[in-house]
């Protein structure tokens, strides 16, 4: 008896799974119909002083910055107060299946002139990201996630000419600090979110693509100035707008 029941249950679940699968497929198919969220992030107030970085410890690094001295990158303000490196993501309103979609592009975290480019790297949960090095000196990459989240810290070095390191994060976390112990000033962030996300460019503007119609809460995260949220409603085709303004401390 029980055997037969379990058999029946099994068939049912498979059917369900197939159904869900096809649904989500349909979503992908009419991705054209999806909306997007765009806007700008600005700083209100005088930009804080970004202290210079003395790289004399490693001659290779200091040579790389001989012409333009390196500065800290915690708050970078572009033209008309646009804030760079702010990560925007949808904190509420996404259904599980929508959140589960992976963006196609693979985020790349490069080590260049003993600095991280980009300084902040946003990615989706479980999405593969790549760590590369363009330097002729060895770095070690040492992300230190919060142990509570279930993300596992790692620490590996990348000598010149070593192949890229490809990794994923298994849990949502805003944000994971990344550092290089060999060059203590090297510091960056991994921002791991569910669903679509965007990072502001030097003018502070951004666009989150691939947002299905609906109303959401968008969160903007800045490493120094904290987070802000805004409610937006996305209609098919028309991009919704959400601007943010951080007050400088």
């Amino acid at each position, binding site marked *: 008896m029980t055997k037969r029941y379990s058999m029946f249950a099994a068939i049912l679940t498979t059917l369900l799974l197939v159904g869900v699968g096809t649904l989500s497929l349909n979503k992908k198919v009419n991705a054209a119909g999806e909306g997007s969220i765009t806007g700008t992030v600005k700083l209100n107030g005088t930009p804080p002083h970004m202290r210079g970085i003395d790289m004399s410890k490693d001659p290779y690094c200091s040579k790389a910055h001989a012409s333009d001295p390196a500065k800290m990158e915690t708050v970078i303000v572009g033209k008309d107060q646009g804030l760079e490196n702010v990560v925007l993501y949808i904190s509420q309103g996404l259904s599980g299946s929508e959140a589960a979609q992976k963006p196609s592009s693979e985020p790349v975290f490069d080590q260049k002139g003993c600095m991280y480019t980009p300084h902040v790297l946003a990615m989706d949960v479980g999405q593969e990201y790549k760590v590369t090095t363009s330097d002729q000196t*060895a770095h070690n990459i040492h992300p230190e996630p919060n142990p509570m989240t279930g993300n596992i*810290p790692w*620490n*590996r*070095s990348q*000598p010149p*000419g070593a*192949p890229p390191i490809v990794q994923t994060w298994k849990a949502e976390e805003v944000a994971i600090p990344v550092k290089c112990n060999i060059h203590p000033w090297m510091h960056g962030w991994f921002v791991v979110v569910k669903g679509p996300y965007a990072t502001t460019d030097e003018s502070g503007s951004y666009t989150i693509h691939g947002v299905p119609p609906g109303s959401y809460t968008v969160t903007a995260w800045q490493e120094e100035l904290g987070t802000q949220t805004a409610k937006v409603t996305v209609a098919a085709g028309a991009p919704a707008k959400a601007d943010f303004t951080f007050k400088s401390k």
Partner: protein
Amino acid sequence: MHDITAHSLQHHAPTGFIRKHVFSLDHKVIGKQYYALALVAAICGMILSWLMRIHLGWNNARIPGLQLLSKNGAPGGVMTPEFYLQLMTMHGTIMVFFVLTTAPFAAFGNFFLPIQVGAEDMPFPRFNMMSFWVTFVSFIVLMSSFFVADGPTLGGWTQYAPLNAVGAIAGPGQGMGVVLWMISIALFCVGQLLGSLNFITTTLDLRTKGMSFMRLPLSAWAWFITSCMGLTAFAVLMPACILAILDHVAGTSFFVASNLVVSDQLQPHSGGSTLLWQHLFWFFGHPEVYIAIVPGLGIVSHILLTNMRKQMLSQRVLIYCMGALAVLSYMVYGHHMFVSGMNPYSSLAFSFPTLIITIPATIVVLIWTFSLYGSKLRINSASLFALGFISMFVSGGVSGFFLAQPSIDIMLHATYFVVGHFHLVMAVAAMFGIFAGTYFWFPKMSGRMMNEKLGQVHFILSFVGAYCIFMPFHYLGMVGNVRRYASFVDDFTVPLIPVHRFITIAALITGAAQVIFVYNLVYSRFWGKLATENPWEGTSLEWSTTSPPPFDNFGGKHPVVYHDPYQYGVESSTGDYVMQTSPEQVATPRDEK
């Protein structure tokens, strides 16, 4: 524990493969097992050193296939700094513990100590068996750390605190790797303690009729002295390892100080003493070095005597010197810590006994060298390696002059000078002792002779090669080239890279030469020509029994000893020597008494 004596009283040779060859109670089989373990370990250690040398010679060169050894450690065959350090740590640990301690002490000692004192077996065969198998397990545990998450520890064989206790945040291998290392070494200590227990009781209680202490061969003396050192040293290292494991796993703070911020994270420990680990470790660590070399002294003297066909100028002095070395080795350990932040006055206090150690060492060398005068030296692989041992011992010893002085140590500490020093005096010399012992005793252990020609080729290559590798280390050190660097980014080290390449090439060739030895060993084991009872015309007890000896060593009867060892250069019915067991009376050439 106690019924084992009873067991060895009614001696029956075991039947059945397991009891005979695997879990054997026979000291001879256990000795061979130790030898095999040491051989495997030595090969592993040598391969590791090759990889290190290649990396040092040609930085960031792709070593094809290296990524198979460790995917993360050598992505695409390029060795990462952490992997270099992991290889270095494992090389040191394997060589010091599983080769230099097991081969001359545990392997040869197990096989020949009971025979040389005229006993049937060790008093506690079960402990003896345990001692091997515990050591074996500890080796497996150590090697297994290659296969855990981020590889073995990179802390060096000294495993300084607090690097050994703060965990994975301090770097790859500092998580599971360290724990496995500590467990492995703690187990190793247990194994060697059990071994020392057997060695000491054998020498004290199981000497046969007529075998007074002064009639013990020098090798037996060396093993006895070594086991006394081992008993003291390993009994201190084990607690230290336990403390370190607790610090690492249970969050205690024996060695980890308060307010440490590793990689921007404040550590939870409080108030531990960093120097405490160094004191405990080096209290073991320095005697350990002598545990590696003293058996060599004994073996070499034994072999030289047999091949010189005359007595040493004085056997007693050699014994006293070995004893003096053993005692002094506990008073000098602080010379590893001159610049460690220890009280500068204690640095001075430690430097004088260290300098004094050169006196017994020098006397040993003088006795050896000047005893050669007027001898009828027989040149064979064994005696060659024994003589090579002397040369190496001297070369490595004189550099001790420098390191014994705190003021000079300011300049040379932690440079390649140290590496050259301890490799010559401890590693190479001890290895030569092992080789000499192998060529000398192989007939007795296996019943077959080793190939003499191959042996001599192997010797000359090893001798020249060893110097080519380790002499340049001293020069590097004098320039100030710091050891334990994965690659040389300092401007001034760039002109030294050719030297490193030379060393690397020499290391590869010399290493390859060891293949001859392994081949010779394996070939002779099965197809070598049969050995007689006493191929070298030796006098000590091991030559008065068949090769290989029967299960109870002397075939039921018990040897009676009539002479001091080494009655060479006399007229007797047998030739120019008298066995210890022969009652024949001869005029001893020059008696010491």
